[in-house]
């Protein structure tokens, strides 16, 4: 019989660390990754030798890149596995680390996301799949099509999409690890260059480089290694789905709805119990679509609730308190792990300027082209 993560033994995030997301530069991926791992080890109060397995979420950098990075932490001979799942690579690496601990295979596991943007080949090209648009529909245009349909269906305005970027820029301005740390006005977000449909440049996430690390451990390990149980953030559920056939229904939203329903049911909570959410806001329209798909607002209702401040830090539920992909950035491999870092900081009450008051329950959501969705629900220590 299959079991949910919560029906296995408890697994908690005990340490998180980041290398700031930044414009692509000369820093090798090895330095980015080791910086994040050392930060996570220091946060947990652990030595590298305590880590029993490593999953590296990475999509754009190089084949088999793990050991050249981890070797700088000392030889241990642990299993090292690259996890490629497009934008959800880091989220999937985190899921694998959690499964290894929850199943009892290991006591301590690490998920690391690391990437430097590089030319990559689309699976449709490799598969020989062509369409009438002949390569003209790249991700921002995929979401521009959704944005225009959303405006048609709900009477939404370009200003309402832009408000998502205004909120997330404000959050990112308080995040020293964010690639964009500048507050933006509505006028600035709406200013040219126009990219596709209603989307302007500041409504599209920056693709940079960076790294993120999250260490997960069993209750036995927390006790044996003398870790602080009050700072351990429990992973209540891990849900993963792939796209099926939705006909005319927007598949990103449908897949998000299905996967979030599973994650919330497995965690035993309702959507309105969530305090903080990190979601795949690569383009402004996505935040509105996913808030609705998660059941936090009625169809077409997210924009007006956002304008009322319901998704601000300190509002009904803080959405993208890190700045999200729009402001913190989207270095691909790190992004999903970086969301876990932010949720852990929020649930520990350690998020500083970005702290959402009284945060107890958090949700992390990523979609990956191709197309997959990963959702994790986390809870503050009891």
């Amino acid at each position, binding site marked *: 019989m299959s079991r949910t993560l919560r029906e296995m033994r408890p697994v908690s995030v005990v340490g998180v660390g980041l290398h700031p997301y930044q414009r692509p530069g000369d820093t090798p991926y090895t330095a980015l990754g080791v910086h994040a791992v050392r930060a996570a080890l220091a946060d947990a109060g652990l030595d590298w030798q305590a880590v029993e397995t490593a999953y590296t979420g990475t999509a754009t950098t190089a084949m088999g890149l793990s050991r050249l990075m981890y070797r700088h932490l000392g030889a241990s001979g642990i299993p090292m596995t690259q996890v490629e799942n497009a934008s959800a690579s880091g989220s999937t690496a985190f899921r694998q680390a959690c499964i290894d601990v929850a199943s009892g295979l290991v006591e301590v596991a690490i998920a690391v996301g690391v990437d430097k943007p590089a030319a990559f080949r689309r699976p449709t090209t490799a598969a020989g799949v062509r369409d*009438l*648009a*002949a390569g003209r529909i*790249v991700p921002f*245009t995929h979401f521009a099509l959704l944005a*225009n*349909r959303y405006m*048609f269906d709900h009477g939404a305005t370009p200003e309402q999409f832009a408000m998502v970027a205004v909120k997330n820029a404000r959050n990112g301005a308080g995040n020293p690890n964010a690639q964009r740390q500048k507050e933006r006005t509505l006028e600035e977000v709406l200013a040219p260059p126009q990219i596709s449909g209603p989307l302007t440049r500041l409504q599209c996430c920056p693709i940079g480089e960076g790294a993120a690390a999250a260490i997960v451990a069993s209750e036995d390990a927390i006790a044996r290694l003398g870790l602080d149980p009050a700072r351990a953030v429990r992973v209540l559920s891990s849900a993963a789905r792939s796209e099926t056939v939705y006909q005319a229904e927007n598949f990103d939203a449908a897949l998000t709805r299905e996967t979030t329903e599973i994650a919330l049911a497995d965690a035993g909570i309702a959507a309105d119990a969530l305090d903080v959410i990190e979601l795949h806001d690569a383009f402004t329209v996505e935040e509105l679509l996913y808030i609705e798909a998660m059941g936090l607002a009625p169809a077409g209702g997210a924009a007006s609730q956002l304008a009322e401040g319901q998704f601000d830090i300190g509002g009904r539920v803080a959405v993208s308190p890190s700045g999200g992909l729009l402001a913190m950035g989207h270095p691909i491999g790190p992004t999903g792990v970086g969301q876990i870092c932010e949720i852990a900081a929020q649930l520990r009450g350690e998020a500083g300027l970005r702290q959402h008051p009284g945060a107890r329950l958090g949700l992390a959501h990523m979609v990956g082209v191709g197309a997959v969705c990963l959702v994790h629900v986390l809870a503050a220590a009891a």
Partner: protein
Amino acid sequence: MRVAADPGLYDPENPLPTLHGSRCDACGTTFFPPLGIGCEICGAGAEGLRAVPLAAAGTLHSLATVYVHAGEDIEAPFTVAEVQLDDGPLIRGLMSEPATIDAIGSRVAAQWAELRTDADGNDVVEPRFRIEDRGDAGGGAA
């Protein structure tokens, strides 16, 4: 004469574009672009997938004018469309001219667009969708 920019996808001989679709004998679903290996609904094998011509006509589901594109041979701006074909699938292609979102819900049909002339003097063509008549779709936006 006309030659197809992408011969796998449409037949340039017809005066109006006809798309190369496929249909699954087992579950009856129609696909475009065509599937040749197996059915993505029911998993029927290649022998169950039959080539069918699809009229390049339907209802405009969404559209977007694209202002920036990194592709070397692709000149922006251009307008892309999602079209719910009368023959089944929701497909993506190009509009022959820009339009705004109040065109969503309109009837559209493809016509040949001449992209260039090849070395043999043939017109290289691809289908592009044109608004036939405005639907009374009743969407909220201007």
